[in-house]
């Protein structure tokens, strides 16, 4: 562990890396050729284009947040970047939001157009300024919305950061990781570029695992089955790195006697459009999901454990896609509560004897509605649950939010500011930190490793699977 702090100018002056963009152009990547993913063009008047797009993208909500800030500075005490770097005033959320606010003031607002110096209104001069803006909005904010909920005026800084990210994405002025994930999302329908073959094979593999565990060859993971009670959607990370979480969920559904299915396409409940600020991509991915449910005539959509996936699929996606919500959608947490409450599955808390604390994902607690649900389940599946402070909508980000995990160039800063979260975790004294978000699993794992905490990360489904009481006839002999 090092106490060295990052020199912030090293972060905000990081050059625009175009290797992946060039590669995509050479390979005639369909998403690039069709103009779905934008590549940077130095010959274009990018500043002018950004200003034009800003005008068109503004809504009453964003304008009220742009004009409403009184620069009281209260947000500096709510942001983990600012708290971890008290010597660095550029970490203040109001400063980050001011990067777009000053453009708005110079180009659109009154006073700034007439007396720009009086309100610090200015437009970017060139692409270098836009690159600097990119590094601020992508590299120094995880969009956790903690400042939003702590702003006396109700200014939604996270929305302003996302708005700015969206404008830069349209110009191809984005971190490499964002470009790659956006491209993969458009081309494969999921953010990790998982092929349909890999997806199906992984499900079949997990099906065999559960069959072996339950000693029940009749167990199936139903794919594209019509007229089920619900369609289960997952995070591509589960397919690629954590397939056991799918097996756990499937086992629970099976034990509960559920009628359910998984779609062969439209299964990705995550949505990188939330992070890149690209509403078109957000709408495309979300619509795939909703259309899959409609195609299969599912009565519900159940979203696996993922903070931004839940926020995108349950809330933002319908708005991005302008898609009427005719099929209800819910987090798998609610499905689990129903099973436990109705006695459809039996759980034994003594099977999870280690001390467990719960980390609220920002997107579940501050931009969703799920704070009591995970706790209700935890109280029934473990014996030593202890709260983390602050918690619920006051909780600190895992520091991997906002797509930060895909932007490796900002990792040193991310890990430095993770000290706030590390201290919070350490204070619980728990052996396990449970979360309900795959992104948080990776964010927390990174900081646990760096700060050498004696702790492991688990998810609710891991613990439910552990506590699940399987009737004897199903137990493997």
């Amino acid at each position, binding site marked *: 562990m090092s106490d060295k702090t990052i020199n912030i100018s090293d972060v905000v002056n990081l050059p625009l890396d175009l290797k992946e963009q060039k590669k995509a152009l050479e390979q005639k990547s369909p998403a690039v050729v069709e103009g779905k993913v934008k590549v940077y063009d130095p010959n274009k008047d990018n500043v002018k284009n950004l200003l034009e797009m800003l005008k068109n993208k503004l809504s009453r909500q964003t304008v009220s947040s742009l004009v409403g800030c009184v620069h009281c500075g209260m947000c500096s005490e709510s942001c983990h970047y600012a708290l971890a770097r008290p010597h660095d005033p550029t970490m203040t959320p109001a400063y980050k939001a001011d990067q777009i606010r000053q453009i708005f003031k110079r180009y659109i607002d009154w006073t700034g157009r007439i007396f720009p110096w009086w309100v610090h209104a200015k437009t970017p001069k060139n692409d270098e300024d836009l690159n600097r803006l990119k590094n601020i909005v992508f590299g120094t904010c995880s969009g956790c919305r903690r400042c939003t909920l702590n702003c006396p005026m109700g200014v939604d800084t996270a929305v302003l950061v996302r708005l700015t990210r969206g404008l830069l994405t349209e110009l191809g002025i984005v971190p490499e990781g964002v470009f790659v994930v956006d491209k993969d999302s458009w081309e494969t329908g999921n953010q990790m570029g998982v092929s349909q073959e890999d997806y199906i094979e992984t499900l079949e593999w997990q099906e065999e695992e559960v069959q072996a565990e339950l000693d029940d060859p009749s167990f199936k993971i139903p794919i594209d089955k019509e007229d089920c009670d619900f369609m289960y959607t997952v995070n591509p990370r589960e397919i690629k790195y954590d397939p056991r979480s799918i097996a756990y969920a499937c086992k629970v559904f099976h034990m509960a006697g559920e009628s359910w299915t998984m779609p062969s396409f439209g299964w990705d409940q995550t949505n990188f459009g939330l992070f890149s600020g690209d509403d078109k991509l957000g709408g495309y991915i979300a619509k795939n999901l909703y259309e899959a449910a409609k195609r299969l005539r599912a009565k519900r959509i159940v979203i696996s454990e993922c903070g931004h996936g839940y926020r995108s699929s349950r*809330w933002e996606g319908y708005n991005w896609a302008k898609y009427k919500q005719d099929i209800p959608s819910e987090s798998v947490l609610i499905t*689990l509560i129903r099973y436990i409450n109705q006695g459809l599955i039996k759980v034994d808390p003594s099977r999870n004897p280690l001390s467990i604390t719960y980390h609220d994902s920002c997107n579940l607690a501050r931009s969703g509605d799920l704070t009591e649900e995970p706790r209700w389940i935890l109280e029934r599946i473990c014996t030593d649950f202890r709260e983390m402070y602050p918690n619920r909508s006051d909780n600190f980000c895992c520091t991997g939010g906002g797509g930060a995990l895909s932007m490796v160039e900002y990792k040193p800063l991310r890990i430095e500011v993770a000290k706030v979260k590390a201290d919070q975790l350490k204070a619980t004294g728990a052996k396990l930190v449970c979360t309900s978000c795959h992104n948080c699993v990776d964010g927390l794992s990174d900081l646990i490793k760096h700060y050498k905490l004696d702790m492991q990360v688990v998810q609710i489904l891991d613990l439910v699977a552990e506590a699940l009481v399987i009737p004897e006839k199903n137990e493997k002999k």
Partner: protein
Amino acid sequence: MSEFLRILEDEVQIVALAFMATVYTIRLIWMFRFKAGKEITKPVGSPRVGVAYSMMNVAMPWAMESARKNLSFYVQFVIFHLGVLMAITATLILPYWPEFFESEPIVRIFQLFMGAAFAVGLIRLIRRITSPVMRLISTPDDYFSVALLTAWFAAGVFAMPNQYEVSEWPLILFFGMTTLFLIYVPFSKISHYLYYPFTRYFLGKTMGHRGVFPRKKGGEKPAGLE
């Protein structure tokens, strides 16, 4: 009372107020010309309750960590804004109901609030100048607005006895500043009170719809138990 002071207290204020109201009206029309974001999902909570909660946030220091952890800052905020309220009230009462300020206790109450607000204004100004965070985010308008208000409170303290027969200068200063204030405010950050209902409404509506507002403290019934 001289004719100059009478006109300054009455007609000039009315013209300045009308100017401010006109600019505000144009400002609101400008803001409403931007498209409205639409929420088309099925709600979990109530947008109305969310809006009410969001609007009342200012009076619930316990509901927001930034206020909860900085109670002295919150108290300063309350004093400062009560000072504004008292000063505005005084500009409306002095010209049309001067007898009201013949009561010494009333004069003292107004002076107390404005004096306290003046002190808070100074503290805020010092904070803005000395804190690196505040310096970085502050614009000339931020400094000028706080300085203007602070000076206005000081002028108010001296004007409250309304003893124009002794000297008109405190009143001329107070109403002169009020005029400047009314004309400047719509272009400055002081007009945040105009935006407050909107920012809080939009945030409250979204968060109420999603069930995030009112914020949960524990013990609420989870979904799925129906």
